[in-house]
C-alpha cells in the first residue's frame, strides 16, 4: 500500500496518542477524547487505529464516536461557539441567541461555516445559570447576554464583518 509522507506523519501523531494507553476496551473512550482534543475531530484513520490497538471491531469504535456528544466525526471550526440551552438559559431567551448567530454566520446548531471558521453548537447546561443566558466562545464565557450583544462578540472573532448582514 502506498503511503505518502503527510499521511505517515499524521499516523505517527495518532499513534503517539493511542499508544499512551493500554490496549484495552476500557480505554477507548479516553483515547477518542484525546484525539478529539488534539485534532478537533476523530479522523477516520485514527478511528481504525484505535480499534486495532484495543482489539475491538471498527464498528464498535465508530458507534462510540457517534454516540458520545463530546466526539465529532467531522472537523469543527476554528472558533467554536457554544450557546447554552440549559433550562435557566432557555427561559431567559437563550434560543433567540441561536437565531442571532444564524443571522450573522448562517450556521445552525451542529453546523460549521463554509470557510471552516465558525461552528455552532447548543449545549445542555454549563452550570453558569446565574449568568443566564450564557454563550461560550473558544472557552471564554459570555454571560447575561441580550440578542443585540451577539453581533459584537462575533466581530471579536473576525466574523460577520459583512456590513450588509450586520445592518440588516
Amino acid at each position: 500500500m502506498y503511503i505518502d509522507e503527510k499521511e505517515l506523519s499524521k499516523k505517527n501523531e495518532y499513534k503517539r496518542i493511542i499508544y499512551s494507553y493500554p490496549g484495552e476496551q476500557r480505554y477507548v473512550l479516553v483515547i477518542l477524547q484525546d484525539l478529539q482534543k488534539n485534532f478537533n475531530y476523530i479522523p477516520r484513520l485514527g478511528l481504525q487505529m484505535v480499534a486495532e490497538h484495543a482489539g475491538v471491531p471498527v464498528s464498535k469504535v465508530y458507534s462510540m464516536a457517534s454516540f458520545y456528544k463530546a466526539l465529532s466525526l467531522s472537523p469543527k471550526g476554528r472558533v467554536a461557539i457554544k450557546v447554552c440551552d440549559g433550562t435557566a438559559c432557555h427561559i431567559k431567551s437563550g434560543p433567540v441567541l441561536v437565531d442571532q448567530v444564524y443571522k450573522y454566520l448562517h450556521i445552525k446548531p451542529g453546523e460549521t461555516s463554509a470557510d471552516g471558521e465558525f461552528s455552532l453548537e447548543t449545549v445542555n447546561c454549563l452550570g453558569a445559570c446565574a449568568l443566564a443566558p450564557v454563550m461560550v466562545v473558544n472557552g471564554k464565557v459570555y454571560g447575561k447576554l441580550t440578542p443585540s450583544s451577539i453581533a459584537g462578540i462575533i466581530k471579536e472573532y473576525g466574523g460577520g464583518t459583512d456590513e450588509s448582514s450586520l445592518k440588516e
Partner: protein
Amino acid sequence: MNQALKNNETTRQIMVCCGTGCIANGSRDVYQALCHELANHDGIDVQPVMKATGCNGWCEKGPLVKIMPDDITYCGVKVKDAAEIVDKTLVGGELIKRLLVRDPVTKSYLKSHHDTPFYSKQHKVALRNIGEIDPASIKDYIDRDGYQALIKVLQNMSPGQVIDEVIQSGLRGRGGGGFPTGVKWKSCADTNACPRYIICNGDEGDPGAFMDRSIMEGDPHTVIEGMIICAYGVQASKGFIYVRDEYDLAVIHLSRAVEDARDGGFLGKNILGSGLEFDIELVRGGGAFVCGEETALMASIEGNLGEPRDKYVFPTEKGLWGKPTVINNVETWANVPVILGKGAQDFASVGTAGSKGTKVFSLVGKVVNTGLVEVPMGTSLREIIYDIGGGVLDGRSFKAVQTGGPSGGCIPGSMLNLEVDFDSLTRAGSMMGSGGLIVMDDHTCMVEVARYYVNFLAGESCGKCTPCREGIRALLDILTRICNGDGQIEDLDLMEQIGETMQEASLCALGRTAPNPVLSTMRYFRDEYEAHILDKHCPAGVCPALTEFYIDADICKGCGSCARNCPVDAVSGKKKEPHVIDNSKCIRCGECYRHCKFQAVRIR
C-alpha cells in the same frame, strides 16, 4: 504543623471565589490584581494568604472576595477595586461601602455575607468547606477536620459498624432516586463476590443543576474521604469517579486531590497503617445525559456505549464488570464524612421523618438571588424562593417552580408552602432529582417549557427501548404542533396515554420519567394548553407563532427603552411619543416586553 496552624489563625486570608460563575465574571483577574497590589505595597508587614476558593454559591453577586478573620465580604469586585481594597481595608481597616451587600429590607450595609438572608437561612453540611478552603490544598481540608472521620473509622470501628452508622443516619441518595445509602452498602457487603467496586457518579447532566460540580471543584477531598470510608465498610479495593466531560475545573481539582491523597497515605496500599487497600481512578464522561443512569454509567466505564440495562439484579450484586458495586452521587459522598465524624444521630437531627439531613438546591431562573443553597430537608418552597432567593426577578409574578430536571415536574404557586423532601415532591407529581429549582414567572410559557424538556430528552434517549425512543418523539411532535398553533384538543388525551405507557414500559428511569414535565404541566396548567389549542394564543408571549406584541399608545411614555433593546430595529417612534412595533420585522424575542418599565408593551 502546629506553628503553621497558628500562623493561619493570625494571618489575614483573602479568599477570592474562583468557581465557574465568578471566573466568568472575571474573578481570576481580580485574584491576580490583588496579588499584584499586595506584592507592591509597602504598608503591609505580614503578607496575607491569598486563596482561590471554590464556588460560594452566590454566583449572582460575583466575583466575591472574603477577608478573614475580619469576616468581610465584598461583592461584584472588579480589577480596578483591588488597589482600594488593599489601601483602605487591609491597611486602613476601613470598609468599602459600595462593595458590601445591602439588606433588601432595611437597606443597611452588611459587613459579612453570613449576615445576609441568602446565607443566614442556610445550613451547610455537604457544602461546609466550599468557599472556605483552597480546593488544591489538602492541608486546608485537613485543617478543617478533613480525613478525621476516616481516621476514626479505621481506628475504632468495624466495617459492619460503619454500614450500621450510615443506615442509622437515614441518608438517602442525593442523585435523584433517594434510595437509602446504608442499605445499598449493606447489600453490597453481603455478597460473596470479589473484587468490589465503588463509583462516584459525577455525571451531573440535569440542566439548571450544578451542585455536584461545585463540590467536585470546591471540596474534592470530601468526595474522596467518603469513598474511602465506604471502601472500608464494603471492603472494596478500587474506586472510580466518573466526571462530566464539560467540567474541566472539576477534573483538574479532583486529579490533584487524588494524587495528594495518595501522597498523604489516604489512598493506596495499607491506608494509614490499617491494612486497607483502595485506590481511585478518574474517568471523564463522553457527554451523554443517559450516562447519569447508573447502569449506563458503568457500561461507559467498561468502554461500551452508555446504554442502560434492566435492573433485575442490582449493581450492588452485579455491577461494574459483573462485580458488586456501590454507586453514589457526589453530594451523597460529601455527606458521608460528616455522618461518621459527628455520628448518625447528629446528622439525623436535621430534616423530616423520611428524609434526613440537608439538600443542596441550585436556585436559578427568574429569581433575584441565583446560586446554590443548602437547607434542611422539609424547608418550604416559599422560604427557599422568597426568604433566601429574594423573590421573583423584576417584581414579576410567580408562576411555577420546576424541580428535578428533565425528569421532574412543575409545581404551581398554590403549592408554595410545600415542605420539600423526597416524598413530598413525588406526591406533588415531581421529584427531587439532583436538586435543580428553576423559578418561572408569568413570562414563561408552560407548554413551551414542556416542549423544551421533551426536546432535550429526544436528543438524549439512547434509543435502546421502544417506549422511550418512540414515546418521546411522539410527545415532541404533538407539543411542537401545539406551540405552532396547530394543536387539537384531542392531543391532550393522547399525550396522557403516551405518557402512561412510557411510565409503565420503559427500560430505565430516563424513559419512565420522561413524560413527567408534560404530565405535570397538563395537571397544573391545563388552561395554558387550552389557550394554545382553542384560542391560538400564548398567554406568556413566548411561542412566536401565537404571539404578537403591540404597544399601548395610552400608556407608552416614549422613553425609547424598547427601541434601544430591540435587536432587529422593529420598534420606531419619536422621543416622548408613543412607539410602534413593526410586526413584519419583529422576531418575538420579548426584549421590549421585558425592558418596558410601564408595562406598555402588551401581548395580543
